[in-house]
């Protein structure tokens, strides 16, 4: 890909990823976050985290579909870090606006409320991935170890989806869309591997 096109695309991805945060800041400044701004901030940051995790998880299966899509790898770290950025905002919303910075309240919540426990687990799984996202860390760990560590994103995404289901009321099925998308992206991996093996085996037989 031409450098200029890459720069243009990266700028667009940055803008798209920042849009929900800009929207929230603008809404907070103009006091236009709707009737329940606290809930709006919590929901927007949580939803954006899950969406960005899904987009990050889509890169690998897409690349496997066609070698022409190999360039997508250049966006994976950016997208993953933005997912972490929104997860952090989501976490801070809870700490500041829900628990009111009260440590006993937070400990109580994590111990008693499984949706919060699951949310914290998802965040703690993302944390080492964000910390080892630098080129220096990749070199230090070695590609193989780094890849192994970063498989934690699968677990983080699953925890994130469970966190969503446990947060909504029983009987509400709105998390179904993101669940289906993330499930498809996770299942696509073994499926694509199997198809690849079969293709290779056939090629071997033909040869």
């Amino acid at each position, binding site marked *: 890909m031409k450098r200029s096109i890459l720069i243009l695309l990266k700028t667009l991805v940055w803008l798209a990823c920042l849009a929900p945060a800009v929207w929230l800041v603008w809404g907070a400044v103009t006091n*236009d976050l709707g009737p329940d701004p606290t809930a709006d901030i919590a929901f927007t940051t949580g939803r954006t985290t899950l969406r960005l995790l899904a987009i990050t998880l889509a890169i690998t299966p897409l690349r496997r579909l066609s070698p022409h899509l190999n360039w997508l790898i250049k966006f994976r770290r950016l997208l993953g870090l933005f997912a972490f950025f929104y997860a952090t905002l989501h976490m801070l919303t809870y700490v500041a*606006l829900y628990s009111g910075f009260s440590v006993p309240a937070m400990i109580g919540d994590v111990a008693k409320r499984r949706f919060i426990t699951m949310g914290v687990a998802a965040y703690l799984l993302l944390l080492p991935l964000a910390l080892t996202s630098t080129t220096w860390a990749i070199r230090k760990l070695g590609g193989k170890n780094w890849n192994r560590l970063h498989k934690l994103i699968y677990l983080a995404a699953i925890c994130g989806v469970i966190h969503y289901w446990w*947060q909504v009321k029983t009987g509400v099925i*709105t998390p179904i869309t993101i669940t289906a998308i993330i499930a498809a992206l996770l299942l696509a991996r073994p499926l694509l591997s199997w198809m690849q093996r079969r293709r290779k085996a056939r090629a071997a037989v033909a040869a």
Partner: protein
Amino acid sequence: MLIAKPPDIPSSEITSRDAYFRYLNRRRFLKGAAAVGAAAMGADRLARLVSPRTTVHADPTKLQTVYSPLTTTGEQLTTFDDITHYNNFYEFGVDKSDPAKNAGGLPTRPWTVKVEGKVAKPLTFSIDDLLKLHPLEDRVYRHRCVEAWSMVIPWVGYSLSEFIKQCNPLPSANYVQFLSYYDRHVEKWGGAETSIVWPYSEGLRMDEAMNPLTLLTFGLYGETLPNQDGAPVRIVLPWKYGFKSAKSIVTVRFIDKQPPTTWNEQAPNEYGFYSNVNPDVDHPRWSQKTERRIGLPFYAQRRTTLMFNGYTDQVASMYTGMNLRKYF
């Protein structure tokens, strides 16, 4: 009809009277906007894009009201806009903004309420019968949702006890059940977005139903209820979590046993039959010690939740000797 948003006054500056005035201004503004016609169309579209707001309050009628000593004082009213655009009415969608968009099809007239079960004789009341049954009162009540948000709403109605007296319940009528309107063609969202078995059902013990605070409600802000707020007639129970206050009621059934109620059936560990506002009994998924007041900036929303939502004097005696942790 053209919809436009009036200039925002910081909510901290709104007193109850100002809020009402602002609402009246808004209505005048809507009429003015309609007169401007096609020229305003572009601006309206743009305004909607920036801040999408729709309203289902197609034919509001002003209601004649009288003062009630049971009205709550000293609270800043939630704006009409927020009361009508932040609704839990799952038949019309699970998002808080859905009912305002989707409730337009609710056929509020003609409307009848059937009275059945343990009564001397089954009866049917038309909405006009009900509106004439007793003078309508202005009742400002705090409204506390089980989801830990709250509003202050100027309802219009009269004590449900006035209606129950006309129903001649039998001595065996220990409970009252309310069934909400349900038509899966009109309310397709209820089936598509939830696994709830409709119609919505709620219920009260007879003494709770007869408590003067229990309001048979026909309006808010001096006008008939907008569809998304439970038109044309609903119950309001200010000391209980909001879901106990059934909307758009079509059947009132007197029964001897505790009736099945929608959210209690969905998740009995989360929503008790009584569901009295109680800061000491947490919801399994969040604390009920505090609440978020609707319409305030994010840093000013948090406030302490009061026992029985601040209506202890009027209702606590009904629960003396009851373990409110067990019967939550």
